[in-house]
């Protein structure tokens, strides 16, 4: 490259080095002249003192004027350049001032020595010293000063410059010629010197760049590198080396490679170092290092000895590459290979011993490999099948779907549970179950074929047996149902007439006998009812009406029902912790009560006289309410608990005097499951029992009312209307009464039975009928049908409110004429919206317009 000054340099650094060195020379030479100036000044004074310290005139003498001249003129000449050297060392103006001053000093000395020719050499010497600047330009002012001095003094004061009174002009020309002659050589010398300096700067820059490059290569090398002295201590390490081992440069300096070598590899490391020192050019081993953190690293360590020109070793250069991952990979590969070999052996064993055919097929379905099991499946030797199309073995009737399956396997990649019929070599037909995988990369099917002829036969037999069993079970349920019905009829007579006899004042013996008849009849009735319930549940015919049920009220109710039995058996019946009135569970009220009665009945029956039975409840953290029935009875042995909920299982009580069917707990469990609840027991022999049931909490209807009063309820219409609500559940009745209490324009009529509802509808002609489906005397759909039959009630809109949310039921009721269908628990805002819409549309309809279609709301 070419610099701004037009000189050639290999790079900017060369120019920088050149300028730096040149400046150093300028400054150094300035300092040289500074000393020289002082020496010259002192020398001039000394010379003046030596040559002519005083001048005499007879007896009188004075200091010679040359002495004064040497002191003052010499000082004047030297002062300014000295100041310049101090203030601007190295500056061009400084050295030019020095050049002028130096020549003036020469002139002074020449004058002081009376123009001695020897002092003229001061000029030449000064020019030579000025050339130390290696700046030929500095010779120009020096030469000009010398020339002018010689010319002027040669003309006007030849004595002072040549020591003669008259001087020939040729003498000045001669002196000037010598000066120019010297200048020529000095200029050449300066130019050569500068050229050499540039060359050196270029070489130095190149060396620096090369060294920097080497350092950079060393430092940034992706593998660890280190320079180790002959004393075996680290001298330099690169970043990769330090990162690999976790040491800093300072920590490694002073250590030896052996200090970080794994103990088992120390000996071989020492041997290799010795070998390298005694001739082996380079070495490479795989060894282990120990990092600062104590981790053992596998590494490839290559090393060589760096020697000087005479072959004397200078230091070691070692290169370390972390091969821990490679070692781990090799180990993993070795392990994998071992496992693969094991797997291959295992596969071979499997194939050799498998009872299933394991084979591979090419893309055209021809056998490529097949194991010996083909002999038992198809009666073909493996060599008879290799190269043969597998479709040839398939029964002609199954070939089409087999080819379709083969096509599909290409799309999905695999095939399972495909069964076709194949023809053995002996002509027999076998059912074959196929599992196959298609490898697109290998263009190969990997197949396993299994003889399922026997399995198919067994499955068919099982299927037939199950169907038979289902038929039998269905027949059993039908039988039980019919038998229950058929048994109820004579029981009606037995119990009815038994009670009639009891009212006709029998004597004591007759009363006892009648009592046995009635007791046995009631027992039989209970048995029939429970059998019917279980049959209904198992047949999936159980109908539940899930709604919020107040827990405390229900508990109080069942306790009241149980008090007579407890009193009869001298058992203390009490209530424990009770939930507050607002605690509700989502359940069918009747079924929930039935379960609690079952538990209490069992507790009272199995607790000896004088014992106690307690019912309590608690709210669980998981959002459930647990009702607990505790007794002080004999408890239940752990081995019997598993059979506790089995129908007709009385756990040995059948041998006691306690009456029972063995169906109570089984029925309770099924009812709890149907209501999404749980039932369980904590018991131990002689420690009593704690039976419990859990049901999910539900929001209290009263809470729903409270929340609804700030909602859509405020927007109800002001038209007067009459609503008939048909519901046998008192809680639900109360709920609707509360909901409509804030509507003075609405008159609510309630009915708890279907027939009563029909009478009230005909009598009051309500604007809207809210109808529950589960009524004690008539099902809700029968009530709806009756309403549809009569002119007076045919157009009265009916909204069904039921816990049955099945689509089949909803569709059935809407088709039967219901205007809308609401499910329990009631969404209050939705309830108001629906009754407003239905009552409103009805009012329009009564005026002769067609009612607007009402949406189905569930």
């Amino acid at each position, binding site marked *: 490259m070419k610099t701004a000054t037009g000189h050639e340099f290999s790079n900017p650094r060369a120019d920088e080095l050149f300028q730096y060195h040149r400046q150093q020379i300028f400054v150094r030479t300035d300092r040289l002249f500074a000393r020289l100036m002082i020496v010259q000044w002192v020398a001039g004074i000394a010379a003046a003192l030596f*040559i*002519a*310290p*005083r*001048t*005499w*005139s*007879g*007896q*009188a*003498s*004075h200091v*010679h*004027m040359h002495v004064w001249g040497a002191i003052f003129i010499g000082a004047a000449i030297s002062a300014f350049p000295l100041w310049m050297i101090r203030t601007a060392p190295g500056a061009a103006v400084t050295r030019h001032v020095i050049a002028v001053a130096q020549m003036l000093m020469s002139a002074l000395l020449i004058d002081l*020595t*009376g*123009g*001695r020719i020897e002092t003229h050499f001061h000029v030449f010497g000064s020019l030579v010293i000025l050339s130390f600047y290696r700046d030929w330009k500095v010779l120009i002012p020096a030469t000009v000063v010398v020339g002018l001095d010689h010319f002027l003094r040669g003309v006007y004061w030849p*004595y002072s410059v*040549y*020591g*003669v*009174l008259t001087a020939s002009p040729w003498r000045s020309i001669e002196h000037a010629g010598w000066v120019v002659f010297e200048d020529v050589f000095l200029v050449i010398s300066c130019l050569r010197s500068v050229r050499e300096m540039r060359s050196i700067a270029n070489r130095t820059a190149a060396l620096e760049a090369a060294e920097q490059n080497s350092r950079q290569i060393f430092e940034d090398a992706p593998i660890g590198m280190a320079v180790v002295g002959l004393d075996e201590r680290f001298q330099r390490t690169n970043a990769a080396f330090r990162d690999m081992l976790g040491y800093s440069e300072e920590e490694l300096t002073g250590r030896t490679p052996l200090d970080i070598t794994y103990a088992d590899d120390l000996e071989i490391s020492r041997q290799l170092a010795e070998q390298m020192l005694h001739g082996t050019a380079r070495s490479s081993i795989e060894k282990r290092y120990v990092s600062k953190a104590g981790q053992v690293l596998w590494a490839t360590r290559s090393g060589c000895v760096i020697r000087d020109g005479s072959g004397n070793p200078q230091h070691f250069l070692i290169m370390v590459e972390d091969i821990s991952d490679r070692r781990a990979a090799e180990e993993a590969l070795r392990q994998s290979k071992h496992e693969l070999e094991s797997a291959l052996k295992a596969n071979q064993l499997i194939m050799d011993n498998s009872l299933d055919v394991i084979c591979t097929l090419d893309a055209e379905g021809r056998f490529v490999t097949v194991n010996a099991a083909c002999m038992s499946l198809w009666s073909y030797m493996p060599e008879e099948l290799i190269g043969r199309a597998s479709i040839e073995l398939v029964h002609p009737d199954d070939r089409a779907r087999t080819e379709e399956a083969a096509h599909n396997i290409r799309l999905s990649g695999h095939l399972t549970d495909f069964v076709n019929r194949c023809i053995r070599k002996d002509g027999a037909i076998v059912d074959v179950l196929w599992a196959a995988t298609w490898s697109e990369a290998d263009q190969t099917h990997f197949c396993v074929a299994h003889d399922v002829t026997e399995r198919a036969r067994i499955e068919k037999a099982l299927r037939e047996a199950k169907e038979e069993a289902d038929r039998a079970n269905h027949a059993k349920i039908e039988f039980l149902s019919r038998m229950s019905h058929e048994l109820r009829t004579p029981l009606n007579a037995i119990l009815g007439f038994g009670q009639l006899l009891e009212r006709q004042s029998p004597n004591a013996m007759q009363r006892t006998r009648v009592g046995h008849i009635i007791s046995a009849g009631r027992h039989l009735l209970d048995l029939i009812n429970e059998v019917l319930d279980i049959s209904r549940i198992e047949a999936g015919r159980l109908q539940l009406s899930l709604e919020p049920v107040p827990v405390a009220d229900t508990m109080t109710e069942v306790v009241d029902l149980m008090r007579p039995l407890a009193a009869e058996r001298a058992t203390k019946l009490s209530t424990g912790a009770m939930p507050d009135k607002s605690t509700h569970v989502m359940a069918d009220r009747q079924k929930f009560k039935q379960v609690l009665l079952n538990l209490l009945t069992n507790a009272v029956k199995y607790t000896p006289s004088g014992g106690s039975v307690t019912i309590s409840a608690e709210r669980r953290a998981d959002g459930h309410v647990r009702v607990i029935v505790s007794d002080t009875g004999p408890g239940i042995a752990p081995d019997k608990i598993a059979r506790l909920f089995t129908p007709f299982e009385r756990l040995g009580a059948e041998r006691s005097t306690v009456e029972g069917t063995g169906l109570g707990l089984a029925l309770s469990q099924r009812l709890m499951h149907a209501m999404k609840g749980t039932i369980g027991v904590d018991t131990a022999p002689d420690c009593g029992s704690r039976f419990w049931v859990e049901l999910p909490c539900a929001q209290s209807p009263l809470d729903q009312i409270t929340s609804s009063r700030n909602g859509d309820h405020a927007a109800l219409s002001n038209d007067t209307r009459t609503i008939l609500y048909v519901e046998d559940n008192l809680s639900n009745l109360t709920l609707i009464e509360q909901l409509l209490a804030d509507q003075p324009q609405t008159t609510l009529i309630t009915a708890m039975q279907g027939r009563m509802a029909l009478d009230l509808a005909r009598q009051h002609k309500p604007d809207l009928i809210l109808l529950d489906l589960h009524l004690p005397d008539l099902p809700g759909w029968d009530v709806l049908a009756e309403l549809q039959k009569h002119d007076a009630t045919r157009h009265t809109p009916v909204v069904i409110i039921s816990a049955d949310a099945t689509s089949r039921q909803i569709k059935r009721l809407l088709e039967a004429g219901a205007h809308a269908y609401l499910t329990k628990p009631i969404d209050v805002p939705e309830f108001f919206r629906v009754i407003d819409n239905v009552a409103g549309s009805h009012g329009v309809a009564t005026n002769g317009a067609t009612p607007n279609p009402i949406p189905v709301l569930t």
Partner: protein
Amino acid sequence: MVAHPRCPCTRASIGELARIMARAKGKLSAVVLFVRPESVDCSWNETDLWRSARQIPGVTTVVDAGGVAAKKLGAETSGHVLLFAPDGRLLFNGGITESRGHAGGNLGENTILSLVTGETVQRNQTPVFGCALANPERAGQRPKCAR
């Protein structure tokens, strides 16, 4: 030669005199008159210059008390040389240094040696470089060691 015993420039003249005496190889005899002012004691003129002159073979040093002889010879500057023939004729009159205190070959020296060998010379006068001799007429002037 007439010399001021303390003139530094005359040292070169004494040196040149020694060279002339050596080259003349006995054909010359020389007398150096060291001018001593009257008011000083006798040791005033016993300088190194005086001792140097005494050591030159063929040279006789004479103290010129009060500069009487110098005055008679018309010498005013130290280093003034006058060469007389055996018959009393003045052959050369001037200095024998190229310049002030400047040793080395010079016209005065060459002229004297030529005259000694009988050669013809074109000039027999040269400038004299040195201090002023004790000259009552210049007593008030600033002394100088020059021509």
